[in-house]
Structures are given as structure tokens and as C-alpha cells.
């Protein structure tokens, strides 16, 4: 137990030093009187047009955007609980965000926009989801041996049949470093325990590569260093797959996890008014439409008029929406998390010291 605490502390201290080194990206008029600081675990590429549109609509607000890893974001929010710097915290690690709300780090916000939001996309009027995207596999079409996998079973088969070609060429999250990585792994285990066990075993025996961040995996898949990235966020994968012919995004046929990105306003946060205005903007039809038409994110209720739109989820099999409710706390249970990570390390033959 102590070891894990120590480990967590190391991760936090390491990352926070790194975090403070990263300067925020500023948007809007330099002379604007109000400043809105957003801490977010979201690639700027997907978010920049939205931020630009926002400052265009609200010229008196200047936005500082800080990109933070999901797990770091969680510890940063707790660390800053006395005097938060950020007015809005956005993350794809729904479980960590929900735990923040459950443990009382968020404040209530209510507007006509949040009222319009379906109840399964918000919790306690403190946590608001603004996008719903599939979790996908991304393959390098040229480098991938044999037929492209349809689901996890066919992926397992491919790995067994092409052991050499697959060794060290599958990438996924390091669940110890990535909050969203852990969430996806734990949801996999929950959805299909046996499949997950086999997959993990196969990953372990073929030296799966672990990453902290989605775009690193995608870069390596594109370059051919990896043939497949597993459990990637659909919005990033889709964006890159559209730009890059070598890449193909696959929605697993056995089940496709659906993940929400959610925002909360920390308790005691500065400039709550603008945080609310920004949140309302994220939930507005205008921003939701932007996400779909400009291919940034998967909106909550996409415009279904164009069925071939890659930003309308068209999963070949069942979808498993990760529900935004108290169940997420189970995955983050201290004992369960410890055991799950230990099992994961054992399976992937990674020692704690790594």
C-alpha cells in the first residue's frame, strides 16, 4: 500500500514539475479584462477552433489553455483545492472526474444549456459531458500482416498467427501514467473479462509498447513502427486517419466502448462566470455542430442527416457507453486499482521500477 502511495507521489511530483514547465497557450485579445484559465486533457488540435470561436464571440475574455495529462490533471485539481488556478477542468478520464465531484472538489453550475443536457450526460449539475466518442483500434494498413482485424478475437488470431510481425508493434496506454488508459482497460475488463485476459496475455508475450499519450501512439502507427494502436480515443484517431492514407480506424465489432469528455468547475475557482459561459458554449448547438462539421470531436447528439459522416458513430457491433455515474468509482477503488495495475504489470512483464 505504501509503495503505491509512494509511486503515485513520484508520478505526481514528476509530472507537476513538468506541468509547470509547460506554458499555457493564450487565445484572444491581450488587453481583454477577464481571463479564463482552462486545464484540459485534450489535444489542442481538436480544441483550437472552438477556443478561437469562443474568444471571437467574447472579445472581452482571454483564454489560457493548459494541456495536462488526465492523471496529472486529477492530482493537480486536488492539489489546488484550496486555491484553484483553473476555472474549468476538462478531461476524458470520466472516472477521475466523477471521483473529483464525488469527493467534493467541484461546484454546482446550472443554466438553460445544462438543463437541456440529457440526465445521463451530467451528474449532480457539477459534471457535464460535451462529447461522446468511440474507442477504436488504429492500424497501419500497409504494415499490418494479413486481414485487418474486425474485433478483438480476430486481433488475437492475427497476433498468434504473426507472432514475429506483431512483437513490439502493438501500442497502447500505460495505465499507470494515463488516467483515460486505466479507465479504458478497466472497462474492457468489465465488459469482457476473458477476452481482456487473453488480450493482456497476448500483449505481454509480444512486448506491447506502452505510451502516455494518444498522439505518440498514432505517430508510431503512422510511421510504421507500430502496426496497431489499441484503445485509442476516436476523435484523435479519426482526425489522423482522414489526413493519412496509411491509417485505418477500426471500431471493434464485438463491442465498442463509448467515452465521454467531461468538464467541471472546481470549488473556489476564479472567474466562475466565464467558466459557465464557456461551458454553455461547449454545450451550445453552435459548438456541437462545429465539432462535427470541422471534424474535431464527436458531439453528444450528432446531426444524423449525413450517415457517412465519420463523426457519426456507426459501430458495426454493440456499443458500451461508459456511464457517467457512481459505478465509475468502483474502477478507482483503491484495492481494485492496486490489484488491477499489479495484474497488468505482471501480464506485460513490466516491473514496478520501470
Amino acid at each position: 500500500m505504501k509503495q503505491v502511495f509512494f509511486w503515485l507521489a513520484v508520478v505526481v511530483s514528476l509530472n507537476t514539475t513538468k506541468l509547470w514547465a509547460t506554458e499555457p497557450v493564450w487565445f484572444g485579445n491581450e488587453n481583454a479584462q477577464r481571463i479564463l484559465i482552462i486545464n484540459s486533457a485534450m489535444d489542442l488540435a481538436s480544441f483550437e477552433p472552438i477556443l478561437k470561436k469562443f474568444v471571437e464571440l467574447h472579445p472581452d475574455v482571454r483564454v489560457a489553455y493548459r494541456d495536462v495529462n488526465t492523471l496529472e490533471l486529477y492530482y493537480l485539481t486536488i492539489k489546488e483545492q484550496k486555491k484553484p488556478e483553473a476555472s474549468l477542468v476538462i478531461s476524458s478520464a470520466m472516472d477521475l472526474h466523477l471521483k473529483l465531484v464525488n469527493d467534493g472538489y467541484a461546484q454546482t453550475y446550472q443554466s438553460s444549456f445544462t438543463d437541456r443536457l440529457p440526465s445521463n450526460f451530467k451528474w449532480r449539475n457539477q459534471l457535464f459531458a460535451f462529447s461522446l466518442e468511440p474507442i477504436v483500434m488504429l492500424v497501419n494498413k500497409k504494415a499490418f500482416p494479413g486481414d485487418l482485424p474486425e474485433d478483438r478475437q480476430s486481433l488475437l488470431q492475427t497476433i498468434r498467427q504473426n507472432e514475429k510481425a506483431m512483437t513490439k508493434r502493438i501500442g497502447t496506454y500505460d495505465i499507470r501514467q494515463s488516467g483515460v488508459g486505466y479507465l479504458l482497460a478497466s472497462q474492457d475488463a468489465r465488459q469482457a473479462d476473458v477476452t481482456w485476459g487473453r488480450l493482456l496475455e497476448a500483449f505481454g508475450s509480444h512486448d506491447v509498447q506502452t505510451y502516455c499519450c494518444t498522439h505518440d501512439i498514432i505517430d508510431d502507427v503512422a510511421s510504421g513502427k507500430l502496426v496497431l494502436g489499441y484503445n485509442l480515443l476516436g476523435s484523435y484517431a479519426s482526425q489522423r486517419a482522414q489526413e493519412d492514407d496509411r491509417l485505418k480506424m477500426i471500431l471493434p465489432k464485438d463491442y465498442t466502448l463509448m467515452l465521454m469528455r467531461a468538464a467541471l468547475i472546481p470549488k473556489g475557482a476564479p472567474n466562475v462566470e466565464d467558466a459557465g459561459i464557456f461551458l454553455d458554449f461547449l454545450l451550445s448547438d453552435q459548438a456541437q455542430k462545429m465539432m462535427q462539421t470541422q471534424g474535431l470531436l464527436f458531439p453528444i447528439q450528432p446531426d444524423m442527416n449525413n450517415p457517412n459522416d465519420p463523426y457519426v458513430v456507426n459501430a458495426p457491433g454493440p456499443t458500451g457507453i461508459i456511464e457517467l455515474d457512481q459505478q465509475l468509482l468502483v474502477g478507482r477503488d483503491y484495492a481494485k486499482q492496486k490489484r488491477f495495475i499489479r495484474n497488468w504489470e505482471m501480464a506485460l512483464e513490466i516491473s514496478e521500477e520501470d
Partner: protein
Amino acid sequence: MWQKSPNHRALSEDEEKKALENAPSLRFRFILAGVLVIGIIAGLAINLIFDYSQKLADLSYDRLLRSALLQMDENVGLMRNEVSIDIPWSAFATLAQAEEDRVFYKVESLEQGFITGYQDLDSQPPQPPVLDQIQFYNQEYSGEMVRFAWVQRHITDPETAQTVRIILGQTRLSREEMASAVTQKAVEVVVFIALVAITLIIIGSHLVLRPLHRIERALEERAMGDLTPIDINTPKETHHLKVAINHFMERLQSNLEQLENYTADAAHQLRTPLASLRALAENARDNTSPERQHQALENIVKQCDTLSQTVTLLLNQAVVSHRLQTHRLEPIDLLAPITASCREQAVAALHQGVLLSLDCDLKETMILGDAFSIQQMMQNLIENAVRYSRADVERGTEIIVQVSEFERFYRIKVIDYGVGIPDIEKERVFERFYRGRYDIAGSGVGLAMVKDIVDHHSARIQILDTEPKGTTFQVDFAKLRFNEDTV
């Protein structure tokens, strides 16, 4: 005679309004009492509902909490002599039915210490811990009131034994929501029922009082002299009122008739002596001889005396009836007015050649009465006896007033030996203006007045025959008894 308001005058419109404002309203009282009672009942009901809805909400959500706790409990096990728990997703899915409620939990072992959950959660239950018995309680945590379920049990395998404690809590948001939803619905129903009941009371009070208004209107709309009975249909409850009013009007009518008769007769009484006075005066004017003229004048004086007597009698009667109405009866010595009237009448009687004697050896004769009225009564009785005395029979000019004592009353007898009263007339002599014999002077009101006075004193009067001839009036007054009832 009748009782009247001492200073009767018609109320002005303003005064009437003011009196109406000040008068207590039956309807208002009725409605007020009804509203109060219904209000109290509704208040009690709402209070009960508040309590009950809280209990109901706790009961329902405690089931969820218990179910989640048991699911957690089932997944506690020993691994390599260490307690471990694998919380099932379904446990929290159960709790997620309370959609907006935060969840806190802690699993610990008494031997091993903290296992998982929220380490700063207080794991001491409010009641002494009993193994395997779930306790529910409210406790503040993380700035909110939290409903906790608590359980403790032994877990053993061949090598080790530990005591595991699980505390699972959820905030009370859904409970409060449910309770207030239940309360709101129930309060709505209670308020609705109360309003309906109050409306019924208001309508009912209107309906109940409507017959009274009808009687009131019937009376108000009457012509001035209309004393005929009210003839409207009224329900049983106001029937007696109607009958009472009708009886009252009957009495009023008979009183009015009496008054009319009295006035007519009084005028008649005064007209006869006035006419004869005029005749006498004319006679005196026309007579030339001084002796005759003197004789006529003498007659005029006599006639004047008679007239004056009649007027005095009428006046006395008015005074007596006024006294009877206004003066309360008080303890007096019966002998005083009797002696006084005897003394007064003795000389007048002697003028007529009648000997009046008082026969009494009592010292004190206390009764409850009005001295003036009794004196008037005696005067009338004696005058009456004098009037009917005759000189031509034995003892015919003797009148005896006798007072004697009995166990419960004093008896006054006025005995004369005059003409006597035939039995048929005895019944009628007390009628106003009844005169036994028109050849003997008299107003016809004297004995009626006697009867009034006797009745007012609750005394008893009887007319007996005197032996051998004559009349005896016998009046019995009840003795004044001091505190006899309390002895």
C-alpha cells in the same frame, strides 16, 4: 301590565350599523371554530406526513444501501492470510439508482487496519457493534449529511481469523427528493380536503341560518299593525322559534286589546262624571233660588271628589304597575302597609258610617314584597268593602281587617257584612272594568289592580262569603324564610 324598555327610542341608521358591527356573529363563530378544528387536524396530518415521508424515503433507499453493502460483503475474502475485497460493479450500480447521490465507503479489518475506501471516514457506529447486524445512521461527511450502512463480521479460514468492517454511505439528496415529493402530494391532498371542508362549512352555515333570515325578513316586511302569526315554511330546528314568536305576538295582541279596552273604558269612566258634572253645573246656573243653587253647587263638589277619586285610582294604578315593573321585591314587614292603609281609611269609612277595625296580635310579619303596592291593595280592598256596606243589616257597617299567621304564610282577611257577591260573579270581579253593580259608585279597576299586585307577589287571593251575609277577601302571602333552604 307589560315590561317596557326604560327609554325607548328608535335607533338611528348609524347606531344600528354600529350595533350590528359589535354584535357577535353566529356564522362567524361557527366558521371560525370549523376552520380552527380543520386547521388543527390538517396541521397534525401534515406533521405526520412529514415524519412518515422521511421514514418512507429512508426505508426505500436503505434497501438499496443494504443491497449494495451485502454485495460488497460477499466479495470480501482472504488471500494469503490478508483480507481483500473486490467491489462488484453491480454494488455501485445499485447505488446509482439514487442518481445524484455521492457515495462514500470504507473497508477495514480490526487486525489489518485500512483496506480500501475513504480512509478518514469514521468507522465507529453510534450503537454498540453487533456482528452481522447492519446499522443505519446519518452522519456528516465531506460537508454533507450522509446515510451510512454499517456491518461487521468475522472472516475465517483454517490459518487466520479477522474481523472485517464495511461502512457504505450515500448522501441524502434522493431521499429528501422522494420525501418532499411524497409530502408535497400528500399536503396538496390535505389542503384540498381542508379547503373543501371549509367551503362546506361556509355553505352549510349559510343554509342553516337561512330560515332565520327568512323569519327576520318576514318580520321586517310586516305592516305596522300586523300581528297575525307568521306563516312561512321553516325546518324543524327553527319551528320552535317561529311558534315562540307567534305566541309572543298573540300575547302582544291580547295586551294591546286590553290596553285599547282600558283606554276606552278610562275615557268612558271620565266622561260619565264629566257629563253629570256639566248637568249639575247647568242646573246650578239655571236655578234662581239660592238654596237650590247652593244644593247644586254642593253636588258639583261631591261629583268633583268622585272624579278626583277615580283619577287618583287610575294614577295609583299606573304608579303601582310601574313599581311592580321596576322595583324588586324586598323584605318588608307586612303589618306596616296594612296598618297604614287602615289608619288612612278609617276616617273616610267613618264618614260613611262604617266602622273599620284591625284585628292583629302579631309582632313581626316579614315577607318579600313591595310596601307601596300592598298598601294600595289594602286600600282598594277596604274601599271596596266600604262601598258595598249596608246600614240596614246587622253588623252591616262593620269591616274587620284580620291578619293571622300560618306555618308557611300570613293570611289577610278583609271581612264585610255587606251585600255579598253572588258565586257567578266571584270569578269576574277581578276583570278590569267589571262592575258588579252599576248603582254603586266605583271605577271597576280597583280589584283588577288587587289581582295584579297579588299575582306579582305570587300570593293567593280568594273570595269567600261572610256568615251570615257579606264578602271576605282572603289573601295569603308566603313568609320570608331565612336560609331555610341551606339548613
